[in-house]
């Protein structure tokens, strides 16, 4: 197990280097630069253009800019945003909890609905139930988030009036950001209505964001379950006279979960990508919305820093997932 971990960690270093290099070059391949993007209809004098270029360190050779970015990043310094003039790390960390909160709720919804749906579909293979679950999940998977989000808003907020349209909490609650997680912060404030309001604001964005992972998880669970149900040990368990619940819940599910867990780990990337659209529609102040804005405005430090941090999260999650295999399936531990 230890050498396994060591090997996994060793892999992380080149991955990080690859990411920094990729982000650094991709953003520079886009036409335009941060200084040019600051100019409006009036244009900008050459003098100011050169001055700002120098100030942002963009007048130096590319390799020097890259090395400096790496060196600083290693020291935890992600630079300053060219738009707001604030430290990128600070910009990231104030927005990150919002994205985590949304993603976790979306994932929770995807798991709570997706897993049982997949299991049921597998058990009732080729029945109307199976077809409808799989049909629904295919629809969910193909739905553009932007359109889906607007549809949810128009139905549940505008027409039915059940949920608020957007934001994280109703305007009347001015909750100080202690943890940055609105659910926790609203609980910490002694106002009972605040928590309720925070929850009601989370529902629609969580559904919009969680739909694709839900569909993927349901389909993955079904196919993995079907495979496992055909295994010898399941037949043995049945022959032993174990109850269906025990056969499915213990013998089959545990083995079927391995590919599902991998999928869940990979879905974290999907969630962060989906968060970009979801956050824009639901005015959710997370990193997705922030990064898109940064890309539009060619805010190099923000894009580089933001993506590096997001990538770190994805790498860590996948590392944890790899370790979880061992917990779920003891056979993997011995390899």
């Amino acid at each position, binding site marked *: 197990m230890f050498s396994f971990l060591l090997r996994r960690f060793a892999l992380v270093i080149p991955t990080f280097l690859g990411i920094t290099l990729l982000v650094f070059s991709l953003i520079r391949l*886009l*036409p*335009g*630069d941060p200084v*040019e*993007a*600051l*100019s*409006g*209809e*009036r*244009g*900008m*004098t050459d003098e*100011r253009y050169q*001055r*700002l270029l120098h*100030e*942002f360190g963009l007048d130096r050779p590319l390799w020097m800019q890259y090395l400096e970015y790496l060196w600083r990043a290693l020291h935890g310094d992600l630079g*300053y*945003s*060219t*738009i*707001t*003039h*604030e430290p990128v790390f600070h*910009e990231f960390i*104030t*927005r990150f909890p919002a994205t985590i909160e949304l993603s976790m709720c979306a994932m929770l919804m995807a798991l709570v609905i997706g897993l049982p749906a997949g299991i049921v579909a597998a058990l009732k293979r080729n029945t109307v139930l199976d077809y409808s679950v799989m049909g629904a999940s295919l629809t969910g998977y193909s739905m553009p988030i932007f359109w889906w989000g*607007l549809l949810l*808003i*128009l139905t549940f*907020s*505008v027409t039915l*009036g059940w949920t*608020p*349209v*957007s*934001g*994280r909490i109703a*305007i*009347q609650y*001015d909750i100080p*950001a202690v943890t940055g997680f609105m659910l926790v912060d609203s609980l910490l404030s002694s106002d009972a209505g605040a928590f309720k309001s925070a929850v009601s604001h989370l529902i629609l964005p969580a559904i919009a964001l969680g739909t694709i992972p839900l569909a993927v998880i349901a389909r993955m669970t079904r196919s993995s379950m079907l495979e496992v149900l055909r295994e010898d040990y399941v037949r043995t368990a049945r022959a032993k006279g174990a109850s269906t619940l025990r056969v499915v819940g213990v013998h089959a599910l545990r083995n079927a979960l391995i590919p599902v867990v991998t999928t869940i780990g990979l879905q974290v990337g999907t969630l962060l990508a989906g968060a970009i659209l979801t956050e*824009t*529609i*639901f*005015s959710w*102040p*997370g990193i997705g*919305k*922030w990064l898109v*804005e940064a890309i539009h405005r*060619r805010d190099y430090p923000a894009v580089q820093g933001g993506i590096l941090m997001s990538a770190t999260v994805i790498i860590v999650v996948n590392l944890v997932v790899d370790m979880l295999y061992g917990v779920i399936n003891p056979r993997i531990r011995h390899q």
Partner: protein
Amino acid sequence: MKNRGFTLKALAATALLACAGASFAAKTLVYCSEGSPEGFNPQFFTTGTTLDASSVPMFNRLVEFDLGTTTVAPDGMAYTFKLRPGVKFHSNEKFKPTRDFNADDVLFSYNRMADPNHPFAKTSPGQTFAYFEDMGMKSIVDHIEKVDAMTVRFVMKKPEAPFMANLAMDFMSVQSAEYADKMKAAGTPEVIDREPIGTGPFQFVSYQKDAVIRYKAHDGFWGGRPKIDNLVYAITTDASVRYAKLKTGECHVMAFPKPADVAAMKADANINMVSQQGLNVGYIAFNVEKKPFDNKLVRQALNMSVNKKAILDSVFQGAGQPAKNPIPPTLWSYDDKIKEYPYDPAKAKELLAKAGYPNGTEVELWYLPVTRPYNPDGKRMAELIQADWEKIGVKTKLLTFEWGEYRKRSKTGEQHVMMFGWSGDNGDPDNFFVPLLGCAAVKGGGNVARWCNKDFEDAIQKAKLVTKQAERAALYMKAQEIAHEEAPWIPIAHSVRFDPVRKEVIGYKMDATAHHYFHKVDLK
């Protein structure tokens, strides 16, 4: 040099008994704004979104917009301002003002921008005083002096008729010198830009990034305490979502509706549509340095072949009026006598033939890659124009680039024909003519037609020096005649802006610039 001291309505302070009806629930107005501010110091930034969240609710200028822009000293080499006494600053946890607004605050605010060695000239990396530089303040003002505690004087390098209009602009917002001193002593000078203290009707409470900006009424506001108690900007970037929030009552006022939604909003019984003729112009510029646009006849022919009515219907959804001059009709000196080029493809073809292009020609049209109030859909507009020009034998290739690149390439004069536009910032005609068609703006990149006409330039430069508005207007009218005859542009439209407001909002008025003012607004 003669000092012609004249008192302006500078920072008038009117004490008003704050409504003592504390037994009523606090009135909170929610405004769904279109984006996040870059910061809260209006001296650093030029985007409407940022100024709308900083200078508009929280600060005042030495000269307020619409006030005094017409009062200019005849020889104009010095401007003396007698300040209004009793103007109170906001307070916050870090700062309680011990004195009222005075000359030190004006000097601090101005010198911070003018003097590169000022201790507050650089409080954070990348910070520029962009507007101050853009308006050429350094070449206009020699220095500013404190005559006494309540009198300041701007000593000029040259007379500049639009100077008063410049002073009314957002970047001239007055900040507290006392606050700056205190934060500098505490070793945190940058705090004055993040937790702003001003003299405006609302004071800053908090900002949750990308989500909510909170302000509360400034009890001591010199213009009378606002009728609402709290003002909240709910940042909502998507226009459809802003509309949904307005419908459900999650906000009272929304910014920038989609032109396609305007008709439905007008029909909604819960929504009042407030409209205002925009201080803007959307246009197509010919690069007169390139063939065939160096020929006036070609430019006129292309003017005649564009069906503006179709553009207004389809691109602006009727929310605009056709343009014939570089300035909008809301601006003084607008020349209404000028006759718009008629839509006449037959005549256009004739002119083209006369110019030496009987079989038409091929052109490249660059279209706007962004949405702007002066042009909601550049691509659609380009397609319509392409079809119009096709009719007179002009084959048009459509092209565009990302905004930064669009600006960069146009600065070097790469363009053939280019879509562009402008929203005025200070209500002076100079603010349209000089940055868009002046000779210096060819190099600066604002004059994308790269058109430098001596007679036109003489007129607009002379209009900077004379101070009587009637004289200036005559010069600008002459300039408009030249611009019409020479046709460096196809002026397309001046858009009408709409602010959808819920029925319970009373007294909301739109402003000529795209700013949103709430201090006179009340809620039912």
